[in-house]
């Protein structure tokens, strides 16, 4: 058993698991380049006989996917920008600034982490309807402007900032906003990038809430549009795969580029309490 067999066994199983995991994603790309109807055959073809971009062209010219892509980009970027500002400021304050009720509020928020967001969805919908935000970009952006998880992530990281550094700046007469902008933010860059990637991917991939709050099709994000397209085009596998590529490739690229930061957030985020 020992010696030659064990390494082959371990690496063989790893290779098999990796292949099985990645296979659907690779096949998605392959099918998206096939001629319409080509994938609806038995046995299922693995590679396109004559690769074509026709499915992508069809999505942009007839299915209006450019609009959905723009919506997704716009919403993900705005949610990320605003929520970063709010969460980083709050996370820093919970770690390093003293204020009345700090510990109590923080404990309450941690407790609220166990409440699934869907519990809030029905009343949130009515609230946003009253504010005139249903069926607008605001309906997605406004409720996502701050989040407990983000604040928690930043706080855990900010705890390591030495108090002496901040005190020295205060003695030098620096105001709190100046200290935040010129000392704290540069020190928090790694966790800010981590939170940015989390928020960006989370907003891009979110499905249930945009589905509820955006009813006009010209406001749809890519996942909502793709779900609705896939109900119309049940048989058009090549077209749907092209839509899946456009939806999922941007997040995969962001992940691959910023993987280190993403994994770091996963560890901090999961070792809570």
């Amino acid at each position, binding site marked *: 058993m020992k010696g030659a067999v*064990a*390494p082959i066994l371990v690496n063989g199983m790893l*290779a098999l*698991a*990796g292949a099985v*995991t*990645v296979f*659907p*994603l690779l*096949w998605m790309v392959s099918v998206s380049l096939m001629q319409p109807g080509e994938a*609806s055959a*038995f*046995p*299922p073809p693995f590679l396109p006989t004559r690769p074509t971009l026709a499915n992508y062209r069809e999505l942009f010219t007839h299915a209006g996917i450019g609009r959905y892509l723009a919506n997704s980009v716009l919403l993900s970027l705005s949610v990320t920008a605003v929520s970063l500002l*709010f969460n980083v*400021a*709050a996370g820093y*304050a919970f770690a390093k*600034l*003293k*204020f009345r009720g700090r510990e109590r*509020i923080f404990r309450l928020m941690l407790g*609220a982490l166990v*409440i*699934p967001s*869907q*519990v*809030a*969805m*029905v*009343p*949130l*919908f*009515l*609230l946003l309807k009253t504010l005139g935000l249903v069926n607008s970009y605001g309906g997605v952006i406004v*409720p996502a*402007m701050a989040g*407990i998880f983000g*604040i928690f992530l930043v706080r855990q990281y900010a705890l390591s900032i030495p108090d002496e550094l901040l005190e020295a700046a205060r003695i030098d007469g620096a*105001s709190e906003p100046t200290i*935040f902008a010129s000392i704290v933010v540069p020190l928090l860059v790694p966790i800010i990038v981590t939170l940015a990637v989390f928020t960006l991917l989370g907003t891009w*991939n979110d*499905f*249930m809430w945009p*589905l*509820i709050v955006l009813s006009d099709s010209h406001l749809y994000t890519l*996942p909502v549009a*793709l*779900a609705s397209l*896939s109900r119309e085009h049940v048989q058009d*596998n090549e077209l749907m*795969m092209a*839509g*899946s*590529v456009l939806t*999922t490739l941007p997040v*995969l690229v962001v992940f691959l580029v910023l993987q280190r930061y993403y994994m770091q957030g*996963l*560890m901090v985020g*999961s070792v809570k309490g």
Partner: protein
Amino acid sequence: MRFHRTAWWFVAPAILVISVFFILPVLAGFAMSLTDFDIYALADPANLRFVGLKNYLRLMETPLFWQAFGNTLYFVVVGVPLSIGASLGAALLLNSPLARFKSLFRTALFAPVVTTLVAVAVIWRYLFNTRYGFLNYALGGLGISPVDWLGYPRWAMPAIILFAVWKNFGYNMIILLAGLQAIPGELYEAARIDGASRWRQFRFVTLPMLAPVMLMVSILTIAGYFQLFAEPYVMTQGGPLQSTVSVLYFMYEEGFKWWNLGSASSVAFLLFIVIFAVTAFELRRAPRWGAT
């Protein structure tokens, strides 16, 4: 103790957003679940009446609610152990000193986690296709006749579970891998000196040392799996014969298709209570589990 006067400016925006758009709706949700809020009340709040626990009682008599609850339970009870098992297996392989190209495999195995659920559900719908799906093609090679994965009530939920395991196992794999790496090497050393076999090392060193991480992973995964929604929405639309209607799918239809918002709120609250109870139960029996 000195207080920072400006501190409130830092926390106020975030706390305001969270209070108004999360805490307030959660509390309002409970209040709404005690009313008959429906499409008429949506048009004119004067039509709103307090009905006490009537929504909850009516749900108890609604067969589709129980079916949705049963389907969700099936998804959790079968899906969570499979998911965590796959995560643990992958983490053990990646943690093995014999493994090569670790970071490449780690990335590959993690990739499905970051993909867009709706997009990959569309892929899997194609893989599950009865006539030209890859799964039936592969099973055909083993001499198994085609299965109507998403069209036959008995197979639709297993198909969704298979998809969910593929999509999610990478997440817990990373957390368990970190847990494995945190186990001191001396423990294995001591076990080896005592003549413990590989299996006994796994059973009496790895598993007990991993117990706290396992507990956290299982709590998070169970809570997440109870929130099943997008998978059936895209792959089966709750069918066939409502075999994949989940609690959240039921809530979505009740609230945003039929506009029975009071009733939908009570569904959401029941789900929350179930998740909360399961979490509390797991935490309570945790110390015993850790001691084995």
